[in-house]
């Protein structure tokens, strides 16, 4: 399948990219890793008028330690995060999450900023970003993860706004991300993350709604001393996932509970 025709421009700086987006108008899209966008274009489910290619912006590909924070340039590829010694040491859950996205070829191209901006409820980084109170930095502002993932494929990004950086807190305590799927390279049917941080637990869920979910009820139960198994029963509190070809809503809610329990138990 061949995408519909579009204009293409390569940006060498964020400013240039933003200007290009403004020039092209509403139907322009940013091209980062392209692994969500290009398949949609091939199927002609997406037909942007123009693509602004930001892959040439060299200063968006970095991982920086910044005190109690880790800063990820938006163009940092999954493979870089997966193999980064700093990430493995300071935020190991993110390295593990990165290693389970797609396959080698996808991880060589896909970017953390692209995943954030795409805001797929089945994306894995958004879950970690939300539960750890990460921030999404754009060329215009800084947005808290909880305010960024508003709805399915929906973010507060303006048409000429570009994600430039994700800022995560350092978290190197016990942690586990369980990505439940039928095939290694699949998206999560449901994913559950547990991270011990500042003496408490952070619990996040993937693909159980239109956005990533932070399971605060589980966190509170754990805080009050509940055993993992009891606390995890709250993982489905308030969830209203839609069913799809791979899972019914009931099954997703059940998986949220089971995987949360396992993530807490297996966190190491």
């Amino acid at each position: 399948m061949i995408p519909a025709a579009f204009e293409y421009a390569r940006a060498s700086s964020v400013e240039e990219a933003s200007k290009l987006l403004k020039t092209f108008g509403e139907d322009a899209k940013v091209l980062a890793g392209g692994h969500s966008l290009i398949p949609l274009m091939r199927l002609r489910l997406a037909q942007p008028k123009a693509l602004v290619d930001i892959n040439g912006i060299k200063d968006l590909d970095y991982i920086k330690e910044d005190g109690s924070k880790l800063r990820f340039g938006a163009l940092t590829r999954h493979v870089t995060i997966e193999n980064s010694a700093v990430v493995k040491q300071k935020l190991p859950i993110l390295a593990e999450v990165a290693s389970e996205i797609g396959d080698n070829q996808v991880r060589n191209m896909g970017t953390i900023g692209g995943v954030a901006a795409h805001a797929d409820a089945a994306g894995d980084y958004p879950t970690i970003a939300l539960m750890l109170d990460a921030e999404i930095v754009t060329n215009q502002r800084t947005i808290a993860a909880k305010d960024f993932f508003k709805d399915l494929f929906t973010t507060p990004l303006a048409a000429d706004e570009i994600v430039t950086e994700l800022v995560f807190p350092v978290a190197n305590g016990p942690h586990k991300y369980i990505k439940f799927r039928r095939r290694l390279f699949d998206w999560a049917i449901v994913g559950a993350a547990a991270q011990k941080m500042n003496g408490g637990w952070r619990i996040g869920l993937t693909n159980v709604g239109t956005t990533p979910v932070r399971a605060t009820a589980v966190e509170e139960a754990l805080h009050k001393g509940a055993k993992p198994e009891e606390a995890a029963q709250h993982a489905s509190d308030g969830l209203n996932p839609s069913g799809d070809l791979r899972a019914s809503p009931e099954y997703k809610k059940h998986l949220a509970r089971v995987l949360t329990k396992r993530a807490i138990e297996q966190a190491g």
Partner: protein
Amino acid sequence: MAVTTMIGAKIHRREDPRLITGRGRYVDDMKLNGMLHVGFVRSPYGHARIRSIDVTDAAKAPGVVAVYTARDFEGLLQGEMPVTISFVPDKKQPIGWAFIAKDEARYHGEIVAVVLAREKSQAADATALVSVDFEPLPAVVDLDKAVESKSPTAHTGIPDNVAWDMTVGAGDVDAAFADADVVVKQRILQQRLFPIAMEGRAVLVEYVPFDNRLTMWTSSQVPHWVRLCLTLAMGIPESNIRIVAPDVGGGFGSKIHIYPEEYLAAAASKLSGRPIKWTEGRSENLQATHHGRAQIFDIEIAAKKDGTLLGYKVRQYVDTGAYVSVFSSFQCSAYAIAEGAYDLKNVKFQTVGILTNTTPTDAYRGAGRPEATHAIERGIDLVAREIGMDPVEIRRKNFSKFPHSNYLGFAYDTGDYDKALTKALATVGYDAFRQQQKELRAKGRYLGIGLSTWIEVCGFGPSAVTAANEPLALVESSSVRLHPTGSATVYVGTSPHGQGHATTFAQIAADTLGLPYDAIDVRTSDTGDTPFGYGTYGSRSLHVGGSAVLMSCRKVVDKARKLAAHMLEASEEDVAFDQGRFYVKGSPDKAKTMGEVAFAAHRDNLPEGMEHGLEAVTYYDPPDLSWPFGTHICVVEVDPETGAVDLQRYVAIDDCGNVINPMIVEGQVQGGVAQGIAQALFEEVIHDAETGQLRTGTLLDYSIPGTGEIPVIECDRTITPSTTNPLGAKGIGEAGTIAASPAVINAICDALSPLGIKHVDMPASPDRLWKQIQEARAHANGSKEAHQ
């Protein structure tokens, strides 16, 4: 006869060097000057009336040369798509399948218009600009609903949706059920599958006007069938049509069909006077290339308490899709092996073909035999469970003993089912597993072991057997030509797409002719130089086509012996042939090699009356079918909390008689098993129940297993030579797929037996298993409460 050196050896495939270096030639790799790209406009509905088609915008689009609809092909393509008999001689409604829809579209993906453009991107753009005014009609999707009297029909104006309804049987089934201690009944779903060859279909075709010649390169398993069908549809003599299947990237049955795109591309070339190229995209492939399985089995088995099987009733519902496809009812071959490896003479088998508004179904790897095997292998496990007998013991008790004829009177060639079973049990360590299973069950873990003591029928087909079934005798052909300096070209009618015929057939020819392996070239898949053959499907190529090669080589040797006798000044009876050398018995030192004889055959001084050259042709018609068999054993652990299945071991002991190349045989088994596992655990085509629209429209939604999902497949074999062909070989191409799905599902049912779960449908996906586990637990709690 020559001492075997090549047959049975692990020879590296000669197909591989070009394929591993990027030098393969698949259809999409080719171009012709002036060629146009074709785009097909397809129905987005399962069922819709075509009110009108407006091609104005498309015709004006950049690069567009022509836009055609059904009317443009009238007079150019005669008749409709053919339907073969294939096990069902009397079809109630072999609904005519036009090459292009005219007034009504009956499945999502049916072609309604054809666009020709200079660039393929332009063809894609213009395809989207053809404006079709569709009026959606009620779509028939669900099989149970389709046979209700008030059901809408898949085609406007037909009386009902039944395409065929046929019953075969033997023995006294009613008496068998009356005498039974136990009767088990089960509905078994065979979900719809995409065959998915990694290369989709592709066609490059050039019609040359005035010459009235047509050449087509097509990704096909059956180039000679394609030629035959194009001759009939287009009125061009066969002699003026050349069909080439170059390197073909897999088929699995999906390329035995002669498709609308092949006819339409050929006709479009004639209409436009330009070469035409079409390469199917994957999402297009999922709509347009035929689907497989899509069946329901209702089975009943009658048995005695001691495990003796008495009677078997089967009702097979085949979802034919919107049209009865060319080999569609080959899926009814299920009835030919209904009772599997068991001696069961009271059998009644009804098959019902049902039209729906979905992509037509046709042969997919195994075509009928995986379904029959799944049914009987599940059935015998259900009986075993019912009477508390071990699945191994009940199989041993009922195995057919040889000589054996089945309920329909088919005489099986050879078999030793217990031998394969015994070997498989030893390989897997059955008794030790049962012990381990017991211990782990006590710890709340659910491990299971599943058996599949499969058989199948292949080697289609002896004309004596298939005469009633097919208009043409499914023989297979070869032509063997020796060149003056002692090399040979072997031409065959089979058409490989990954099976390695160029290697195995060269092995056969090298041994038989006594020539070096490297001096044999095997040519396939080009109707311009190969003799008429039926192609490669149904695990038939070695049994029928390989035997044809052997027979032609023998004919050449016979003539060469006469010539050698003349050269050695001896009588023919006194000349021995061994390792490629002819010599007078007792004087092996004074020999003439086959190469020397070949040279002599092209010189003067031939024996009186002998023609020049060394060449022979064979159309081989085997005396009978062959019946491969084996035992597959699968070990699983089910996670009762999530329903996830961990495939821990897979053992395959198969018997395909004599083996020409063990490496290729193992490869066929492993690939076949992977497809069976894929059906058991992963894959399922889903259509919208109301609209008939395809919901699993890309490989994102259809779960082909990858490297992480298929376990190591432990292969070994027993060897029980066939008596129905001179090679002693039986087919192996489909065996893995035929065997695998019941082995996996039986293992899952065994694992979950403590929960009272007796049957699991496919694919046994985690959500499905979890739901079933929940229901079983609720049921157990319910009955506990009821007892309190």
